[in-house]
């Protein structure tokens, strides 16, 4: 659907040269909801603009909907763009036009009969749930409503692809979810391929089936969401996931308050991660009955990604050292990832026990 190969984008700002994208290879397949995450300045927005050629790359190839965009003449490019919808962080609606006229705008140059255009606009606004706002001006709408109008407008020419540039970053969490629900619906009902640029892993977690992580203009890691979430390879990816699941904060809290762990000398603090149907309960009770190892659960989290549960637990395992070894070996044999974490402040452990 979208394929970028060896994309480089450089900007010359006076004496400095900024590389906004370096050597990017990316493939988005039909029906994907593809997330691109990165901190600000990572080059995400530049990359999404390459996909409809709002930004011309310094080198590389772009194929969208089977067309090599860089080889198109201006007029052909314009009609190619009609088949690539785009929405923005700040909605970019025309303030001088009503909701109805904003959605009508992209249809103005088409040869569709007037009555058909009218029906189309009404259908689109129905689809995004704003049928009652036809005559309102954008200034009278809330952020979420504005984004809905923008989505309706972006879909007017029946594109196969929708590019979302930080589309939920200006919205509150609740509105963000409702917009994401709408996007998920569109993906399922219309088979719309969606590319989402965001700095919030939460958003990716919510609807994406694939994700690419960007840093300094390069993609450091990409893959399907379940494997990225369950086995992030790059520190940056882990960072993002931890902020989305609050994992990092929790570990930090536990580490800075060893008392929370209440650990004995032989106890093992570890993180257990698993993917799939295995539930945390079964794992914990399993090792208790089999090896007499008790697990004190300090933190647990389960994400349902694309209908696949991805869980992680932070536990303190206590028991005899040989039983502990056996239990750990058993866990590993179950396709469960076990990482031993450094015990919080071993030196102060004694102090932690008093309390």
């Amino acid at each position: 659907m979208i394929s970028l190969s060896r994309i480089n984008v450089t900007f010359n700002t006076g004496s400095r040269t900024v590389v906004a994208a370096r050597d990017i290879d990316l493939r988005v397949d039909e029906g994907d909801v593809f997330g691109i995450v990165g901190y600000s300045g990572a080059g995400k927005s530049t990359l999404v603009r390459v996909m409809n050629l709002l930004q011309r790359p310094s080198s590389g190839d772009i194929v969208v909907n089977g067309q090599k965009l860089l080889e198109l003449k201006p007029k052909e490019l314009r009609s190619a763009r009609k088949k690539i919808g785009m929405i923005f962080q700040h909605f970019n609606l025309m303030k001088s036009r009503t909701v109805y006229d904003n959605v009508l705008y992209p249809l103005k140059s088409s040869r569709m009969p007037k009555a058909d255009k009218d029906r189309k606009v009404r259908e689109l606004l129905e689809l995004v749930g704003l049928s009652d706002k036809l005559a309102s001006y954008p200034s009278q709408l809330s952020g979420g409503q504005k984004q809905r109008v923008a989505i309706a407008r972006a879909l007017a020419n029946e594109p196969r692809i929708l590019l979302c540039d930080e589309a939920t970053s200006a919205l509150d969490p609740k509105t963000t979810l409702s917009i994401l629900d709408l996007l998920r619906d569109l993906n399922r009902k219309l088979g719309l391929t969606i590319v989402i640029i965001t700095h919030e892993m939460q958003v990716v977690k919510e609807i994406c089936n694939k994700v690419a992580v960007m840093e300094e203009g390069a993609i450091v890691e990409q893959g399907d969401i379940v494997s990225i979430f369950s086995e992030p390879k790059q520190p940056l990816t882990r960072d993002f996931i931890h902020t989305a699941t609050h994992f990092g904060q929790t570990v930090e809290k536990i580490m800075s308050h060893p008392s929370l762990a209440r650990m004995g000398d032989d106890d093992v603090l570890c993180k257990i991660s698993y993917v799939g149907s295995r539930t945390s309960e079964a794992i914990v009770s399993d090792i208790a009955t089999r090896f007499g190892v008790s697990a004190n659960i300090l933190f647990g989290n389960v994400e349902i990604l694309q209908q696949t549960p991805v869980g992680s637990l932070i536990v303190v395992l206590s028991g005899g050292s040989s039983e502990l070894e056996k239990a750990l070996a058993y866990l590993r044999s179950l396709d469960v990832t076990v990482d031993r974490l450094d015990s919080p402040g071993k030196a102060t452990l004694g102090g932690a026990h008093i309390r």
Partner: protein
Amino acid sequence: MNDFLNRYLPNVMENKSEIWESTYETLYMVFMTSLFSAIFGIALGVILVATDKGGILANRWAYSILEKIVNFFRSVPFIILIALVVPVTRLITGTSIGMNAAIVPLVIGIVPFYARQIQNALLEVDPGIIEATQAMGSGPVEIIFRVYLKEGLTGIIRASSVTVINLIGLTTMAGAIGSGGLGSLAINKGYNRFQLDITFVATILILLLVFVCQFIGDYFTRKSTH
């Protein structure tokens, strides 16, 4: 009433028809100049915005040449500009004296000012909106007419009313080439012949004209804001 006017505005009452004539001349010059300036000024303003760096038809050469021309004509004092463009005036109107002849320097004097105002008004249009319309596959012509001129309308109206008010000021100077109008009336009759009441009435009429323009401008500015 008539007694009162005859007593306090004797010269005005004596030259009533001339005052009406001058008012008409001023209105004529303002109207005709506005008409031509609107066309050239908006076109030039749009071209400046479009060819500017990052514009929809970015062209460094075109922009810098146009910008220099605009700056040049904006810097020449109007009274000198009138004399400077006399050859052009002759070429276009066949004469260098009178109401129609005055329209040429007025247009040349006001267009650069207006174009700059238009440019500023259009730069107020959110670049995000322009980007969105480009993403929707709009071409430059469509973006100019359906986006810049529509989204920038409030700014354009405001710029226009400021410009017309400025223009009223310039028409009074056109008296220097025998254009007639309230300005030359105030000088030639009021000042040169010490008929102070004529100057007074001419001032009132000019102010009235300015207020009316301001009012119309404000009205449409309000109407175009959503």
